[in-house]
């Protein structure tokens, strides 16, 4: 008994030290490099630094900082880690940055730290995933559930010519965001595409291999299936591989929410038709533009629109700045993206 207890302690110790030591050196090499002076300092934090998704957000963020002549500090955990995010926020408070933009790993975990930043007069925006509303001034919302649901359903109907059977592969039957998307997919189907019929919903536990197996089964069980709609990212390449192996590429369409790199080969060989996401570069750009405007006092609570630099006007609903319509990755544009 003592042995197992000791082992648990060891395990806990390893995990804890692993967390606290895995971080990067904070505040390293801000992109400008010049003495701070009166330049605006914008601190920008992804959920994790190495993630290709956030690397492409950073491209846009860098561009916006350059356009604005502001100083951008980019830092975050090496892997998604709420505790490390808090630590970096505390450092930024001490450093006295003008505005913090953060994609929150854990809503509850980070909100206390962000509130403390706000108390010190630092402006806060969130992007990608929100904190508690009281802990930030604005949330740059990359896609509403309605926007995603509509885009998926419209694209499915377009590819099927308005009629036919389709099946949905989801991550789990309990994932809140996916239940929300399914609600809007169904609402759109009823309103705009009554000829489309959803014949099955299958969970893949957010695993590519399981999605491949589920898709193989669906293709056998529903011979009239015209399209597989995959609403979690590993399911898109999984379903595409199943369709390809079943020799049904082109006959059964594949679409879904996913990442360009995971789907590149299937988009190029025509197995997958459309991968839907948002323009991550624009998300980073808009976030930094909004952060700067907020710090300068140009963007205030209650505004209904916002001019995001070279990207033009964006709509604001409540305290959400909307990035707009989801973006479609296809065979034609996939080469412009690498994440």
């Amino acid at each position, binding site marked *: 008994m003592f*042995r*197992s207890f000791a*082992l*648990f302690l*060891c*395990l806990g110790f*390893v*995990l804890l030290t*692993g967390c606290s030591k*895995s971080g990067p050196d904070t505040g390293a090499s801000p992109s400008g490099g010049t003495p701070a002076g009166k330049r605006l300092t914008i601190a920008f934090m992804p959920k*994790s630094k*190495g*993630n*290709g998704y956030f690397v492409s957000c950073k491209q846009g963020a860098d561009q916006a900082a350059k356009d604005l002549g502001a100083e951008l500090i980019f830092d975050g955990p*090496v*892997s998604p880690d709420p505790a490390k995010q808090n630590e970096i926020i505390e450092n930024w408070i001490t450093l006295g940055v003008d505005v913090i933009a953060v994609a929150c790993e854990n809503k509850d975990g980070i909100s206390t730290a962000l509130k403390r930043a706000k108390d010190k007069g630092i402006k806060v925006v969130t992007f990608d995933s929100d904190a508690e509303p009281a802990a930030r001034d604005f949330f740059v919302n990359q896609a509403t559930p309605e926007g995603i649901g509509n885009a998926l359903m419209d694209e499915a109907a377009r590819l099927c010519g308005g009629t036919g059977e389709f099946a949905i592969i989801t991550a789990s*039957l309990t994932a809140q965001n996916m239940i929300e998307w399914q609600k809007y997919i169904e609402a759109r189907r009823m309103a705009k595409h009554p000829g489309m019929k959803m*014949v*099955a*919903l*299958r*969970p893949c*536990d*957010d*695993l*590519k*291999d399981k999605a*491949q*197996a*589920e898709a*193989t*089964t*669906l*293709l*056998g*069980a529903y*011979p009239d299936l015209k399209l597989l709609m995959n609403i979690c990212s*590993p399911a898109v*390449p*999984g379903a595409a*591989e*199943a369709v390809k*192996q*079943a020799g049904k590429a082109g006959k059964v369409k594949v679409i879904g929410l996913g990442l360009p*790199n*995971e789907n590149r*080969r299937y988009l190029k060989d025509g197995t997958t038709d459309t991968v839907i996401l948002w323009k991550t570069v624009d998300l980073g750009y808009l976030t930094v533009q909004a952060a700067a405007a907020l710090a300068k006092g140009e963007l205030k609570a209650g505004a209904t629109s916002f001019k995001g630099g070279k990207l033009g006007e964006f709509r604001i609903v409540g305290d959400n700045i909307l990035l707009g319509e989801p973006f479609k990755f296809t065979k034609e544009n996939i080469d412009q993206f690498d994440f």
Partner: protein
Amino acid sequence: MLKRHFREFSVLGVLLCVLALMGVFAPDFFAPQPLLSRLTAAAPKLVVACGIAVVMVGRQIDISVGSLFAVCSVVCGLVAAAKLPLPLAVASAVAAGAIGGALNGALVAGLRLPSIVVTLATMVTLREGLRLAQQGVFIDLPDGLQWIGLPMIGGQYLVCGIAITVLVAMAAVMRHLAIGRAVHAVGSDAEAARLAGIRPRLVTFGVFVLTGALTGLAAVMNVVQSPQVDPNTGRMLELEAIAAAVVGGVAVSGGRGNLGGVLVGFLLLACITPALTYIGVKPYWDKAIQGTVILLAVVADGLRNRKNGR
């Protein structure tokens, strides 16, 4: 024969009932190509279940196989992606599995720690370590790796063939070789086995190494089925493998179980999910039905043990 293996035959009966029902209500279930694809996709799990069954016969448990499976998949993928020769990729995955198994075995047999705790620790450590190292990014494999360069059908037969070979070989070893009987003896009563001249700790160590190596082999069998490696692969695999062994009549308390039963238990669990898809049952039922099957198997074992006064 029938009486001694009543437990295994009763599961086989259930499996045949399910298949007969499918034959009546959804004959498409047996259409050859999707069936072969489904069996191929499930084959790696059978190999892992063989390893788990041997561990359980030896009165231990290994819940780290799912994480180890992911590590081996990533090792295989990285070696292959580095354009190193294919046999090296396969060997490194199996070696990684054996090393992981040896770590478990050394902690369990060497330090006499409880295997559930040791493998819980390695399960979490390997999975989180992999997350840190790979950040969830897929590994793109070179073209020649899928189906080991064979046409798809050939690759599918090869993967299924390896699974069957492993099963038959393990069954023969467990039944006819001294080492197999030693595992049974250690699982039944380690002290008695020691007095009979068996070295229980060495047997336990060996059983973990074997399971690790089989997990590595299974990872390769899975990696060759698609052109990308998902580093999250193998999540919940340990539960599926343990469930197959338990349903197939392997006793959690050690000393009893055979690999024919594991095959039947594995097939029963593997066909439930697709069967429900074919007859159009809502997915909410999948896990409930699988759970019920496992529960029935455990209850049957409990009743039998009571009757035998164990």
